[in-house]
């Protein structure tokens, strides 16, 4: 039977555009604008899913995307909400969480065993013996599963965007519309955001008067003004998913996450209708009264043919009028109140002859074919208790109108306080931050005019605070009218199955048993029972659970409180956080020369660097060849990533003296000096060389990964010392190479005509300025790899030209590029440490045998006092070199343990096969007692194999440094 109503019902759908889709393999037709749930409802398909634990049949509950009942599987998206997701041509929709078929789910038998699945089941059943959980988890996960991720799917493009507004109004119901209009004064940029497809909120579907005219009239009038106002930007289908510090709002629309900064926020987030709790209250056909009204007005769908309404307020009567107008037979209004308040709407109902049972409740619902078929009505004898007199009424629709909770999530995330008054069953919100206002039903205003007045007032507060207006602030809007919240719409049944939390299949007994198991605090009840932890995050369970816990622990709901609702408000797709992110990548000017030479590039921090040149399959051979060529001929390595900092001014020497451990005041011009950096705790944090180009000019290198921190640290210290210097980070302004090997001079001499390269004129640790291949260059004689070598630093844009010139000039000498990996081996052979690899967050200079780099003759340096104290103590460990003579042993790797007996006494920091020595060499922290050359240490290598290594004096290679001083 087609449930579709004629126009003007169905404001969201376009009847001229039919759309075909399938659900569970059956073809259906809906209209453009239909959600999956509404299109299925139009075809009388109400069953949408099976519940999480007991596999109970579930259908539409809110029609607003606020519950987990409508979760369905799309090819691209598991756990999609059928009442949120629109149909599209040929969309394939499947139900989820059933075994067999949706109609006949074998898993539903679990419901029969529900007494074996008590609250806290997981904790109780799997706490011991150990290993039980691992055994059962796969089965339980399968039964209690949600949707399935399609791993074949090509990921879509998700991204982010910043937005800036003076005022953001969240929620575009009557209060939100009015707040936006009042706030949109001259110059004030307003964003109005709503998660629904259209603006208007309840004006689109709720009934505010007996005639059913006011909502639409007000909506048309407000929307017209909004449309005409250029200061208002509207975003629909957009959910404001959290509130973060200083009004930072993540708003999700489609595949984009908007990061919105608002100077003022006005929350008009409305209220969420709550279910009544009774036996079988979760059957398809049982829904919120607002869901029935949404079906009728938004989608033009008759929500049933024969209806019963259970109500605790007069909204149930308005709902009855809507149902009657839509041609639904209203069999009875079951009013929980003994003496309902009378208004025009309730009088209109009486006039239409609808049967009204006051002081009655729905005690139970009955089902046929997975759908509601009737209700058991009983009189209420006392709070939550029904008398024995029973009347069955057959119906296929039960609407629940027993009250609301404010949509308080964002308010509370901002520090707002939610409280509850047990006598009126009303909520209040207090303690909002200054730049946040709340208005409307979220603030427990139920009268439409009061909502509008409060929204205007909130907007005036906002624009006054922003300085746009100086309007007199209206009086606080008094809360008039009767509370729509019935204090106790909860009716236990001997057979249970009165659901408090639909997501997690929790019943009255589960909540009460949680308190009996000793978990009386509402937060503990939540964690123990999982109440409120499902996809709908307690929207419909928090209040009922709080009431039950309050009663069970003999407290008020106010004393019990409700659980906190943390971000996100609505489920987010991973794409929204994982979508387009920025990872800056840096390339040296010579980058493409490495690529063209066949380098395997690696990313070291942000920088691309050549690991080695050649095929990845020949890794070891390539690295060894590069090492051998540096030792025998000459190699060229790109060191552009090395940090470079200019320290200039008359206090430049004084600054370095204070900043680094060594002495720099008497450093001769034209010389480089090793610069070791410690922090105030005496821990080694960086190193480099300081090149003195003139009395007032040092050029200091720093490690690739450390330079930004070193530069920041330099500026921080000089903000305190106020020395007469300037510090500039010029890392990227210079490209650099290290040309190293016994034939390095023979190559460089061809290109460098204006510097005397002879060993006497330009000794080891000398620095010169001149030209190389006509390029202005700073040339530094360093020995990181242990051979005659020159670091050549040139302005960045000459990098490629310098590289080409050196490679060409070095052909006769057998020049070959070498990569980071060969460089690591070469420096290890030479016994040079790498900060951060051979040091850690505790390493002091003495431990790493760098006591020689500490000057004791200066009044101060950073870390100096701490180092002086450390020098008085016996060191706890020593960094030593070791060799492994057993070539059959697995080569130790970084972080392998050094053992003393079975106790850890240290660890390996670097270890490589040395082509030069023909065996593995490495560095390790060891007990100082084992630090003497000749000591044997035991290393727990790969696979737990104990490898014996011998401690040797560093360096491994060229101990008399003859080669680097050639």
């Amino acid at each position: 039977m087609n449930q579709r109503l004629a126009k003007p019902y169905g404001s969201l759908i376009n009847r001229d555009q039919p759309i075909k889709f399938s659900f569970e393999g059956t073809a259906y037709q809906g209209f453009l604008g239909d959600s999956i749930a509404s299109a299925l409802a139009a075809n009388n398909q109400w069953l949408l899913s099976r519940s999480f634990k007991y596999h109970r049949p579930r259908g539409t509950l809110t029609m607003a995307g606020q519950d987990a009942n409508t979760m369905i599987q799309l090819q691209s998206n598991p756990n999609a909400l059928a009442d949120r997701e629109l149909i599209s041509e040929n969309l394939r929709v499947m139900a989820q969480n059933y075994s067999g078929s949706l109609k006949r789910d074998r898993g539903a038998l679990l419901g029969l065993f529900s007494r074996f699945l008590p609250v806290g089941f997981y904790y109780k059943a799997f706490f011991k013996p150990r290993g039980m959980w691992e055994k059962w988890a796969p089965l339980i996960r399968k039964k209690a599963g949600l949707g399935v991720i399609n791993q074949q799917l090509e990921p879509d493009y998700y991204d982010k965007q910043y937005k800036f507004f003076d005022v953001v109004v969240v929620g575009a119901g009557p209060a939100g519309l009015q707040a936006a209009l009042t706030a949109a004064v001259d110059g004030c940029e307003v964003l109005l955001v709503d998660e629904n497809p259209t603006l208007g909120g309840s004006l689109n579907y709720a009934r505010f008067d007996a005639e059913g005219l006011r909502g639409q009239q007000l909506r048309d009038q407000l929307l017209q003004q909004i449309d005409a106002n250029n200061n208002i930007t509207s975003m629909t289908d957009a959910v404001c998913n959290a509130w973060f510090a200083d009004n930072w709002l993540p708003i999700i629309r489609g595949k984009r996450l908007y990061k919105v900064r608002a100077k003022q926020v006005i929350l008009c987030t409305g209220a969420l209708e709550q279910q009544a709790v009774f036996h079988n209250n979760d059957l398809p056909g049982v829904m919120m009264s607002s869901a029935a009204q949404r079906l009728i007005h938004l989608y033009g769908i008759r929500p049933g043919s024969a209806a019963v309404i259970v109500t605790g307020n007069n909204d149930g009567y308005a709902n009855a009028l809507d149902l009657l107008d839509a041609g639904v037979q209203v069999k009875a209004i079951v009013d929980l109140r003994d003496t309902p308040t009378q208004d025009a709407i309730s009088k209109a109902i009486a006039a239409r002859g609808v049967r009204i049972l006051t002081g009655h409740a729905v005690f139970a619902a009955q089902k046929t074919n997975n759908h509601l078929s009737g209700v058991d009505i009983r009189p209420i004898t006392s709070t939550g208790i029904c008398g024995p007199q029973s009347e069955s009424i057959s119906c296929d629709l039960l609407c629940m109108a027993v009250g609301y909770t404010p949509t308080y999530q964002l308010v509370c995330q901002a520090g707002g306080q939610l409280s509850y008054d047990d006598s009126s069953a009303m909520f209040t919100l207090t303690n909002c931050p200054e730049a946040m206002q709340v208005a409307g039903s979220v603030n427990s205003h139920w009268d439409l005019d009061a909502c509008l007045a409060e929204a205007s007032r909130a907007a005036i507060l906002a624009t006054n605070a922003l300085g746009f207006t100086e309007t007199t602030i209206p009086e606080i809007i008094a809360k008039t009218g009767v509370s729509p919240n019935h204090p106790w719409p909860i009716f236990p049944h001997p057979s249970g199955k009165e659901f408090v939390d639909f997501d997690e299949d929790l019943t009255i007994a589960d909540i009460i048993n949680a308190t009996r198991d000793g978990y009386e605090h509402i937060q503990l009840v939540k964690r123990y029972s999982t109440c409120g932890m499902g996809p709908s995050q307690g929207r419909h369970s928090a209040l009922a659970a709080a009431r039950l816990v309050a009663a069970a622990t003999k407290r008020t709901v106010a004393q019990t409180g409700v659980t906190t609702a943390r971000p996100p408000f609505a489920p987010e797709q991973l794409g929204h956080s994982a979508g387009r992110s920025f990872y800056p990548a840096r390339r040296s000017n010579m980058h493409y020369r490495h690529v063209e030479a066949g380098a395997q590039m690696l990313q070291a921090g942000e920088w691309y660097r050549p690991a080695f040149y050649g095929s990845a399959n020949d890794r070891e051979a390539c690295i060894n060849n590069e090492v051998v060529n540096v030792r025998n001929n000459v190699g060229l390595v790109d060191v552009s990533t090395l940090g470079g900092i200019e320290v200039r001014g008359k206090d430049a020497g004084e600054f370095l003296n204070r900043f680094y451990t060594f002495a720099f005041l008497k450093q001769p011009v034209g010389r480089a000096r090793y610069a070791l950096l410690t922090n105030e705790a005496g821990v080694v944090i960086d190193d480099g060389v300081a090149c003195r180009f003139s009395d007032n000019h040092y050029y200091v290198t720093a490690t690739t990964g450390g330079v930004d921190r070193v530069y920041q640290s330099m500026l921080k210290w000089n903000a305190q010392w106020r020395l007469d210097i300037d510090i500039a980070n010029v890392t990227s302004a210079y490209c650099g190479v290290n040309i190293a090997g016994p034939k390095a001079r023979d190559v460089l001499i061809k290109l460098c005509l204006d510097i005397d390269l002879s060993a006497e004129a330009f000794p080891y640790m000398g620095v010169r300025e001149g030209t190389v291949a006509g390029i202005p260059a700073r040339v530094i004689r360093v020995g990181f790899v242990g051979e005659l070598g020159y670091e050549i630093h040139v302005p960045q844009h000459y990098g490629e030209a310098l590289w080409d010139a050196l490679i060409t000039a070095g052909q006769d000498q057998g020049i070959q590029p070498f990569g980071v990996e060969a460089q690591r081996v070469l420096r290890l052979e030479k016994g040079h440490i790498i900060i951060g690899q051979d040091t850690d967050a505790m390493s002091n200079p003495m431990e790493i045998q760098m006591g020689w780099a500490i000057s004791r003759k200066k009044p101060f340096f950073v870390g100096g006092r701490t180092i002086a104290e450390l020098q008085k103590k016996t060191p706890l460990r020593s960094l030593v070199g070791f060799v492994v003579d057993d070539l059959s042993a697995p080569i130790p790797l970084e972080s392998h343990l050094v053992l003393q007996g079975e106790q850890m006494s240290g660890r390996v920091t670097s270890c490589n096969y040395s082509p030069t020595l023909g065996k593995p060499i490495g560095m390790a922290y060891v007990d100082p007692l084992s630090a003497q050359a000749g000591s044997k240490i035991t290393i727990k290598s790969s696979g737990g194999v104990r490898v014996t290594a011998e401690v040797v004096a560093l360096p491994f290679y060229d101990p008399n440094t003859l080669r680097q001083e050639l």
Partner: protein
Amino acid sequence: MKLLTCPLNGPRNISEFTYGGEFHLMPDQNKTDARQWAEYVFFHDNAAGVVTEWWCHTASTFWFLAERNTITDQVIRTFEASEVFSQRKAFSVIEDQA
């Protein structure tokens, strides 16, 4: 995301800044015993209430100071380091150190 007002660059998202630790004046290392020095280096006040902190605007490497209430996370004010450090700093020397 919090906002922080840089004295040079104005209000910016806190992700543009680097935290530089609690602000403390360094005691004179030559007049401080080991215990007091360790207090300065290793022990942080971690006070509940208004504290002064170092912050650096990363893009411009501009260091400044902020007074922040650690209970409410309200930043009370930010100001340039020169308000505190206006003179060239000299370090004491112990004469008989040799």
